[in-house]
């Protein structure tokens, strides 16, 4: 469970998020909002990559400013090119495990089992810079999954994907047991969530059933002056 209590984020004179209070308990939670609304900052608060200027963020009761939730909360960045840090796929998947206390053999076994599980064993020794956009996004996701986090936050995971790769990624997400918190403009994906939070102008404007929020969001966008 993740709790945000009176969270405000300010960078210099700019207010990014304003007095956000919310408790996240559902298994699949979506976050929508316009560009610059603060939703990516919201996502980064959840695993300690951002810290609130005021207020607290707790993951399973632990404040993120005292003990890092990074082990519990995995984070998939929007651009996998910035997340994949090793030259070969299996080296990259092993990257996060290098300080886990596991032996080299155990790390290799865990990487192989995750590649097997998602039918991606053929990518094991591929050079990461030669992967397609869809393959990179999947490798970035598996790089987080090998850490076995209880919660995964995905920042616009389908934005850079074509329709085919989007479908593959969504079917991947459907197969995960973890709690998923997905930030996205992809309204079809968002409509399938258990709960949807709409962030607008630094505050939560809507929170509830995904279908209802998507409808309200569409109506609001349609009536806004261009």
């Amino acid at each position, binding site marked *: 469970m993740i709790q945000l209590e009176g969270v405000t984020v300010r960078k210099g004179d700019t207010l990014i998020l304003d007095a956000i209070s919310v408790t996240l308990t559902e298994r699949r939670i979506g976050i929508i909002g316009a560009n610059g609304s603060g939703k990516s900052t919201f996502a980064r608060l959840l695993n300690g990559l951002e810290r609130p200027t005021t207020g607290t963020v707790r993951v399973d009761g632990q404040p993120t400013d005292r003990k890092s939730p990074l082990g519990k909360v995995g984070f998939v*960045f929007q651009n996998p090119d910035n997340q994949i*840090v090793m030259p070969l796929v299996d080296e990259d998947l092993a990257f996060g495990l290098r*300080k886990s206390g596991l032996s080299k053999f155990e790390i290799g076994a865990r990487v192989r089992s995750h590649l097997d599980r998602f039918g991606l064993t053929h990518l094991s020794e591929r050079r990461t810079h030669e992967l397609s956009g869809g393959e990179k996004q999947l490798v970035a996701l598996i790089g987080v999954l090998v850490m076995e986090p209880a919660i995964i936050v995905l920042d616009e995971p389908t934005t850079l994907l074509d329709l085919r790769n989007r479908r593959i990624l969504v079917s991947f997400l459907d197969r995960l047991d973890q709690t998923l918190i997905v930030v996205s403009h992809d309204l079809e994906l968002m409509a399938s969530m258990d709960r949807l939070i709409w962030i607008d102008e630094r505050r939560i404007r809507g929170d509830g059933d995904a279908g209802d929020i998507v409808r309200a969001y569409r109506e609001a966008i349609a009536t806004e002056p261009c």
Partner: protein
Amino acid sequence: MLTSDYVPGDSAVHRARPLIKVGLLFVFCTWLFLQEGWLSLSVAGMALAALLAVARIPPRMVFAAVRPALWVLGLIFLAQLFLADWRFAGFVVLRFAVMILAASLLTLTTRTSDLVEAIEGALSQFLPQRSAEAISLALSLCLRFIPRVRDIFDEVKNAQRARGLGTSWRALVTPTIVRALKSADEIARAIVARSPGPADGPAMPDGRHVR
């Protein structure tokens, strides 16, 4: 040599310990640099060719390893042509080419993670563990992101061409550096997010440690 073009294999060259390969490369290049006869260069070239054959490195990979350095070799040839004669210029260029290929044999037959681990192990004999880790991580990031920076450069170049800006170096270099630095910030965040570890682990772009 500075790209990671590892060719999977199970040859004796692949199986050799990375640190031994690094040591042999150092000895080989130093020895070759001190030679001035065609005989020693021929012996070195044949030995290298034999190792490339044992490792079953495809000829196109061998050429790809030297190709980025061709213009530098060309400049060296011209300089030596001016300073000495064509025979010596040819000798110097071939000697450099053999050295580059020898270095490439190392990266073509050694996984980056193994190489980095070996270097980290060697450095930790002389440096604090954290410094050794930082240097080895920087090395692996260089290998990973050289192609990425090249991609950014190509994207910027094509965008500038599309806008009719021709070959203005300022218009090419400035956006490339800005984009590379923005990527670097995001990469630093990703490394932190993917590195659960002790409180003195990697720092965020703003310098703070998240653990």
